[in-house]
C-alpha cells in the first residue's frame, strides 16, 4: 500500500483502470477540497490490482475502502488479492439505484463483507417554508465543538455515516455550517449542513435525549430552511430502517429520490 501524495496520484490510478473498462464501477466520489484535505493529512493510500485500484482512508480505528474497477468481476478478483483484507478493519459502501447494485454487492460479499447499514437519500425540491414557533436556533460556536461531536458520535453509525473528526467539525463551525439550540448553556440539539450554491445537504440533525419533544429539532430545521432561502435542492441520507427520522423528514417535504447507499463492513469489525 502506498501513501497518496497528490490528487494526480489518484487520477493516474483511476485512469489506468478506466481506460478500456467494459463496465467501469466505483464508489469513490470525493469533492476536490475533501480529497486535498485527506491527502494533506496523509489519510489516503492506494493499492493497485489487475483491473482495479483500491483506495484506503483512515478514520478512527478503521479504514474506509474505496475502489475503481473495470467491471464487477475485476472488483471481485482484485479484492480477493488484497493482502490487507483479512487484517484491517474495513468499511465500504455502494451508492446507486438499488436495482443496479446487485453485482457489486455480490463481489463484496464473496470477499467477506457483510451488509451493515442501508442509507436512503431523501430530497426536497424548493418547497416554501413556514416559520416555526420553537426555541431560538443559532450558529454553533467554537466552544460547542466537543458537545456537538459527542452528540453525533452517540446518535449515528460510525462505520456508515461518515462522522466528522474534530478538525472537520471545527472547520464547519468556522464556516457557519452548524446550528445549535442550547438550554442553560447545555447543547440541546444540532444541525450540521453543507451548502454549495443552490444545493444543500443536511449531514447530521440530532437532539439530545433529555431535550426531545420540546421543539428543538423543529427550531433547528426551520432555521436551516430560513437561512437557505435561495437553495433549490435539499438532500440528506438517512438510515432506511429509521422510520421515525424518515417520518420527520417527510414532514419537512423530503421524499426518497431513489438513491441508496449500502454500507458493508468486513469480518474484522465485530457484528
Amino acid at each position, binding site marked *: 500500500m502506498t501513501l497518496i501524495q497528490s490528487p494526480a496520484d489518484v*487520477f493516474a490510478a483511476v*485512469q489506468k483502470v478506466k481506460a478500456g473498462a467494459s463496465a467501469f464501477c466505483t464508489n469513490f466520489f470525493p*469533492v*476536490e477540497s475533501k480529497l486535498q484535505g485527506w491527502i494533506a493529512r496523509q489519510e489516503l493510500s492506494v493499492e493497485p490490482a489487475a483491473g482495479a485500484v483500491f483506495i484506503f482512508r483512515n478514520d478512527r480505528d478503521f479504514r474506509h475502502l474505496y475502489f475503481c474497477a473495470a467491471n464487477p468481476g475485476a472488483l471481485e478478483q482484485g479484492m480477493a488479492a488484497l493482502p490487507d483484507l483479512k487484517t484491517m478493519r474495513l468499511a465500504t459502501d455502494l451508492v446507486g439505484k438499488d436495482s443496479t447494485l446487485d453485482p457489486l454487492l455480490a463481489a463484496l460479499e464473496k470477499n467477506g463483507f457483510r451488509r451493515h447499514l442501508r442509507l436512503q437519500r431523501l430530497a426536497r425540491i*424548493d418547497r416554501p417554508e413556514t416559520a416555526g414557533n420553537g426555541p431560538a436556533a443559532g450558529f454553533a460556536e467554537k466552544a460547542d465543538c466537543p458537545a456537538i461531536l459527542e452528540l453525533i458520535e452517540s446518535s449515528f453509525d460510525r462505520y456508515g455515516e461518515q462522522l466528522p473528526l474534530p478538525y472537520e467539525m471545527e472547520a464547519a463551525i468556522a464556516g457557519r455550517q452548524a446550528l445549535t439550540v442550547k438550554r442553560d448553556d447545555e447543547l440541546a440539539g444540532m444541525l450540521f449542513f453543507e451548502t454549495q450554491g*443552490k444545493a444543500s445537504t443536511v449531514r447530521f440533525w440530532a437532539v439530545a435525549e433529555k431535550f426531545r419533544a420540546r421543539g428543538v429539532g423543529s427550531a433547528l430545521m426551520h432555521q436551516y430552511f430560513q437561512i437557505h432561502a435561495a437553495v*433549490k435542492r435539499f438532500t440528506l441520507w438517512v438510515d432506511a430502517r429509521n422510520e421515525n427520522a424518515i417520518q420527520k423528514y417527510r414532514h419537512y417535504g423530503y421524499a426518497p429520490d431513489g438513491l441508496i447507499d449500502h454500507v458493508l463492513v468486513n469480518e474484522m469489525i465485530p457484528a
Partner: protein
Amino acid sequence: MKSVVEILREIRPEFDFTASSDFIADGLLDSFDMVTLVAALDKNYGVSIPGTDIVPENFQNRQTIETLLRKCGAQL
C-alpha cells in the same frame, strides 16, 4: 444522440442548466452526479473520458463539457 443539456436534465431535472455558467459552484451537480454524468457521456458519445479529466473545471458548464467531449474524440 442526446445533447449535453438533455443528459444533464435527465440527471437533475429540477435545475435549469441553461441559466448557469458554473454548475459546480451553483450546486447543480454534486460529486456523485459528476460520475453519473461521465458514465452517461461516455455511453452517449462512445468515448472514454479519462480519469485525469474528471475535474470540476471540465464540468463547469455546457461549453466546457463539449470541449472535453471533442478532446475525447466525440462528434457533437
